[in-house]
């Protein structure tokens, strides 16, 4: 099972390898590193949405330390660059849902269209496979047919959904869902929330309210608040992560739609500036297109060396 999942992730990453990062790997297949190599490297990283500030800092570090250590061979510099990329992501890793508790509450948030509902289906399946008793809460009561969408997914994956009518108070849905989860002795409750732009103050406050309702029912809930980011997003992802972290207390990122031609280079900036870990990657429209995130293999795969 794990093997299958991993292959899908590699497939997704494979496309990048052929595009941007693949060209990075090629760049190091030369005999020596010239000024042109560095320029080309900068361009390729920017094209992967890594962001100027992050690219500039990363390249400066790599250049300085390769000069310091007197590294000449392209492979050595490449390894240094890879290490730099891994470090940006790894400074902030934590184990997903670490520790034992009766009920784990996972809140899933993000902007409109980032892939929350699909990611929730995949996360539910992931938990189910590990033997967890999973329940979903349909707290996106705003968008047309969002509840139906979650219910269809839930049926496919084989989990139950607690839902109210469209337009109902999302806080009330969460309250009921927690009660239901406790009554049914479910140990994982995943909450779907309405997509919202991080600039909408009132909607962001609503997330804080949902969290506080959860916290009043279950000790220290939500135990994870996952921000779903669309891999095709550019520099705005950093603003999104920042605002969602501030108001909704995001604990980790799900990088969705990694099967697109974009590669989500903005997670490096998010790691660097906010210290938010990427916890999962999602690649397609099937429930098993999902894998826990591993910084080393992510970077390796990006260099075509999975």
């Amino acid at each position, binding site marked *: 099972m794990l093997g299958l999942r991993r292959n899908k992730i590699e497939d997704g990453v494979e*496309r990048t390898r052929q595009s941007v990062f693949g060209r990075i790997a090629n760049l190091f297949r030369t005999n020596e590193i010239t000024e042109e190599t560095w320029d080309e490297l900068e*361009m390729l990283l*920017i*094209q*992967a*949405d890594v*962001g*100027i500030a992050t690219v500039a800092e990363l390249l400066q570090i790599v250049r300085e330390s390769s000069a310091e250590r007197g590294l000449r061979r392209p492979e050595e510099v490449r390894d240094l660059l890879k290490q730099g990329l891994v470090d940006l992501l790894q400074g902030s890793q934590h184990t997903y849902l670490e520790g034992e508790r009766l009920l784990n509450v996972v809140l899933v948030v993000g*902007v*409109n*269209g*980032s*892939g929350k509902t699909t990611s929730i289906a995949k996360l539910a399946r992931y938990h189910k496979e590990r033997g967890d008793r999973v329940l979903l809460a349909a707290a996106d009561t*705003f*968008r*047309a*047919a*969002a509840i*139906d*969408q979650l*219910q*269809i*997914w839930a049926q*496919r994956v084989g989990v139950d959904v607690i839902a109210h009518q*469209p337009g109902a108070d999302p806080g009330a849905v969460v309250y009921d869902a927690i009660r239901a989860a406790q009554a049914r002795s479910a140990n994982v409750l995943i909450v779907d929330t309405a997509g919202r*732009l*991080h*600039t*909408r*103050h*009132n909607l962001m406050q609503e997330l804080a309210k949902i969290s506080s309702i959860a916290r009043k029912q279950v000790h220290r809930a939500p135990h994870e608040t996952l921000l779903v980011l*669309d891999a*095709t*997003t*550019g*520099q*705005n*992802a950093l*603003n*999104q992560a920042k*605002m969602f972290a*501030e*108001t909704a207390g995001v604990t980790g990122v799900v990088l969705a*739609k990694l*099967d*697109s*031609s*974009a590669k989500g*280079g*903005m997670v490096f900036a998010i790691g660097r500036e906010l210290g938010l870990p990427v916890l999962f990657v999602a690649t397609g*429209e099937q429930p098993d297109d999902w894998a826990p995130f591993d910084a080393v293999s992510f970077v390796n795969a990006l260099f075509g060396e999975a």
Partner: protein
Amino acid sequence: MFESLSDKVQEAFRKLSGKGRLSETDVKTGLRDVRLALLEADVNYRVVKDFTDRVAERAIGEGVIRSLTPAQMVIKIVHEELISLLGEPAKLDLGGTPPVVLMLVGLQGSGKTTMAAKLAVHLRKLGHRPLLVAADTYRPAAIQQLETLGRAIDITVHSEGDRVAPPRICRNGVDRARREGYTAVLLDTAGRLQIDDTMMSELESIRELTSPRECLLVVDSMTGQEAVAVAEEFNKRIGVTGLLLTKVDGDARGGAALSARSVTGVPIKFMGSGEKPTDLEPFYPDRLASRILGMGDMLTLIERAEATFDQKQAADLERKMRSSAFTLEDFIEQLHAVKSMGPLNDLLEMIPGMSQVTKQLPSDATERGLKTTEAIISSMTIQERRAPRIINASRRRRIARGSGTSVQEVNNLLRQFEQMQQMMKQLQSGRGMRGLMPRLR
């Protein structure tokens, strides 16, 4: 108007011209900050390079090198070139024999379904009878989503469930429109990756079966560098005729629009700015250009202000100000009106140069200031609001207690209000608020 970017460019040129006469290389070096600003805005690397090359060429041709103010000249050229690259706003092509077919395509989650509903409402306003066609049979509940939206805006949705192939649903929809007298058909297709060959062929067959007048590519304004690849491929496969930019109510700079526009050459037709079916805005190249360059969006701010304050209120206010009858009561009313324009930080960000300032503030600092002011005024009696002169030390202590603030904060507010009144007296001689507005434009 061009504070942050123009300051940077100015600084760059100041350093360069310190060495004497500017060379062509110097001009190119001076454009570095323009390049960075565009990259930060998610404009594609290739597009940025072409763009800065063109600006450099024009700048050299127009004698920036000899100019005493090279930075200003460069900024002006950048802005002009950007506006011209973004192109003129274009209307939807609704010509030909009805029903006219419009097809919406794009990546997953770009906002096609919401946009389809908005366009349907827009077309109805133009006197059309639109029909929405639910052609996304893949995403769970996508059809229900369009049906629900259709009911909310009272527009018919043609759907055949998720077991029929989308090209057939689309053709049936167009046939039905012809039979039942609908004049416009909006095809809401499933989101797809441009690299998914099977799904892209499906779009080709929909296009062949329905001969759409417009193939509109829906582009999320938050898209990064890949916007180029996406737009290029959609255009190659189905021939895009226009771009629809969505989620512009966020704070993305929207460089993706420039990327998509420059690789397809087709015009940007509309911008989606919210979740309501009426949140559809025409595209203004000058505004988007300023936004991409990070230079604020004064025009949107003014428009929002105009939508909030009605003419009569403004006239009343002006009269009061002229007669110095402006009281704390009026002041609190103004505060409420400003608050209803949206979060204060958003408003501040639209003001050129303020985006850097607001970044420094905690996200709710300005909002908190407003709340404090409101609390203080609410703790005053009506007499006190009308004649703040009567507020003596003991009243100040009471107000501070009542509003949960300190006497110092109450004093600050009263002092600010007094200064405001002073300013208004000065304004009396000149023109009022309404007189000021057109000057801002």
